[in-house]
């Protein structure tokens, strides 16, 4: 019997705008908006390009790769629903496309899955890649893990 997912699910601000992001995630694809006239990548999803104010934005799959820009190891979560995950890693990933995204770092230890995170294993600037966590039948959350050889 699967336990119900009791952590916060995405609280959608504008479904029309962000639906493609979440649908891509379900397909295990990390997609971002790209402004057609000026070619810049845009994050968070929105109705207008913050660089040139054009409304002509399209959704494009990314490479799903980047580098760890910064991170923190959480010992006191804001929501009690995360108590079972403590300690866990919140981080900012700088995608190869040049966009910074707030996310979680998983699989941080080369030894195994259930090893607590330690700073020795987590290096700023290390290469990371996207993985997808199907938390419920409706929602998939993109997360990141270190790229490892072999």
């Amino acid at each position: 019997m699967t336990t119900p997912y009791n952590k916060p699910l995405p609280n959608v601000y504008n479904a029309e705008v962000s639906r493609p992001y979440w649908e891509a995630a379900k397909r295990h694809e990390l997609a971002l908006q790209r402004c057609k006239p000026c070619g810049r990548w845009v994050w968070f999803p929105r109705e207008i390009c913050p660089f040139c104010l054009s409304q002509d934005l399209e959704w494009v799959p990314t490479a799903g790769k980047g580098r760890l820009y910064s991170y923190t190891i959480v010992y006191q979560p804001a929501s009690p629903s995360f108590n079972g995950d403590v300690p866990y890693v919140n981080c900012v990933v700088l995608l190869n496309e040049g966009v910074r995204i707030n996310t979680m770092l998983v699989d941080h230890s080369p030894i195994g899955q259930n090893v607590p995170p330690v700073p020795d294993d987590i290096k700023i600037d290390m290469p990371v890649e996207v993985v997808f966590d199907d938390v419920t039948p409706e929602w998939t959350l993109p997360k990141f893990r270190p790229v490892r050889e072999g």
Partner: protein
Amino acid sequence: MAEESLRGEASIIGIGDLPRQRSWPGKSSLGLCAEASKAAIEDAGLQKEHIDALVCIGGAGENAGSLKFYLGLGGNFAIGATMGGTSPLVGLAVASSLVAYGMAKYVLAVYGGGRDEGNPMPRLRQGWSLGQEFEDPYGVYTIEDLTLAMMYNRHMHEFGTTAEQMAAYAVNTRFNALKNPLAVMANEGAITVQDVLNSPMVVEPLHSLECAPLVGGACAFVVSSAENADAAPHRPVYVIGLGASTPGDTPYLKNEGIEYIDPRLTLTPTVWSAKDACEMAGYSARDMDLLQFHDRYPILAAASLEDAGFCKKGEGGAFLAATDTTYKGTLPINTDGGQLSGGRLDAIQGASGAPHLMEAVRQLRGEAGERQVEDANLCMVNMAGDGLSKSSTAILGTDETL
């Protein structure tokens, strides 16, 4: 550079105004604000990079920080001007001060909100209030409607104001709206006094045709110093007078019991804000060519007109019934249909009357098309906030009245 007065130091050089619609499916408040902002920046003949300060009016895009980020704006200040319905003019005051002192060259101010489609009900109240604990248990169907209805009843009791007088104003305002493609009632046809009186009661004595319909949309404007206004593509509109008055928190309670605050429910803070605006401008009520007065309910316009000095206290009803307030009339009021027929922009910390400011600018530029008032050179804009607890007044002019 500002000396002793803000009079004439600032100019509105660009406006962006979206149609008022009952709902904007698929659009968020931030998105609507962004569209209006883009239009205002282009209207001012500028690029986004020229904007170096942002004033977030009311709950525009949730807060100033989010809005600035969303628009990708640079510059220094991002200021929230949140004072209920008076927010657009408070935002104008802030923007004017920034440019007058050279703290910013071009200030973008914006307000907007998309109506939540899943919830057609109006908001109970605009934001937190000390009175909430003591009011909500009694069945507040929006504290705003309630307060104005009680003021209306009191106005009828003290002065003999009638519903027919209020309906006459509503008829004229609808007439104006029919010539404004942005107005929510633009295609709903003319109404008669009887139509108003026959419309269902909301909170007595307010009939539904005396209550402005809730809509979504967005309004934005760009402010520069008067010197920099000459380079803009449109005729500059100058800020000549400004005033505000905030004696209250909850919509009806003006810190009752404090000597310097007149506790009469029928007296609006416009008494003080209009006085200050006229003093700064060096003009009086009779100098105005046209007015843009908050008219979420005709009784609000009536009481505000009294307090701004257009007629004696208590005579607002008779005044409105006897005056042709259409765009072709003797004293044009709300030439765009006001909020009553134009729509009341709804968002958290609402600044529902932002469209009044847009129309004032259009009229003074000479760009109001079929609704154009001849020789429009001086316009008083008056806004009421949180029912009756706040007000702000601006007097806008052209180079002829500077």
